[in-house]
């Protein structure tokens, strides 16, 4: 299902954050790589910071989503209730449908 912005994920879609093993100025923290979550918000398109950090253009802008992941899924030893969650921003190419 496509979102209203034409981007490939819509609110509530299940996704997995992939580990691209990409070095450098990446914006996907290690603690969420490989984890499953749901699309919480379509932030629109942004110039790719992985390119901009090195003086390259970073265009065309790429979709950015806010992905919600349950804390118990991120941390096995999470000390808190099942309902606690974390939301963070992930660029399209770090996501795959789940």
């Amino acid at each position, binding site marked *: 299902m496509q979102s209203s912005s034409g981007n490939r994920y819509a609110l509530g879609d299940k996704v997995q954050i992939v580990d691209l093993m990409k070095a450098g100025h990446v914006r996907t923290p290690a603690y969420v790589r490989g984890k499953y979550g749901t699309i919480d918000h379509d932030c629109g398109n942004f110039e790719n910071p992985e390119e901009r950090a090195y003086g390259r253009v970073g265009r065309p802008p790429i979709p950015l989503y806010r992905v919600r992941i349950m804390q118990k899924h991120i941390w096995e030893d999470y000390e*808190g209730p099942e309902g606690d969650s974390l939301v963070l921003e992930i660029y399209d190419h770090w996501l795959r449908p789940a």
Partner: protein
Amino acid sequence: MTHTDDDHGHTHDHATPHPTREDDDLEMTPAEAKFLALKEMLIEIGMVTPAEIMQRLEYNSRGTPHYGAKMIVKSWLDPEFKKLALNDGRAAAQALGIEITDAELMVIENTPQTHNLVVCTLCSCYPRWLLGEPPAWYVSKAYRSRAVKEPRQVLKEFGLSFPEEIEVRVHDSNADLRYIVMPMRPEGTEGMSEEELVALIPRDALVGAALPGQPSGTVTL
């Protein structure tokens, strides 16, 4: 006595003639020394001017938690404005006459079911144009690493406890958006003026580390 360069025991042939931190008596860390050296080199090769650096510093300190508090109170008092703030934070700030920059602003609303906490694990992203420079604890490695992993423990250290039925939701400000938390309006504040309400909102409430009407806890992260 005439004050000459010789009094310092060094010559003044650098782009920045005086020590940057002359009234800072703490030992300079290697990272700070590197930063200062890099800054001087960039100035020397003409990539950036001292005036541009100063301009940026002044720009960063133009924001103030007071602006954030005003946005929140306006949202408490005006449902239409609240809708705007939640849909388009920048537009809401602009409507209050606050000068905005390119950075997006997402306003995250606390509800009876959810308490929100903001952190930037990768660096120290913070809506500076709105709130000014972040608190020291916000940029500390301890906060940045612990807030995502044990948020309830961290909140407890700020003096906040939430029952298990309330979801604690952490927002990692890791990419292009910036965040402020919209706390719930405290009970018993119905008759208060806008100014009185603004005064209720501590700076730390704007990232979810405090609540309106309660002074921030003493933090030892």
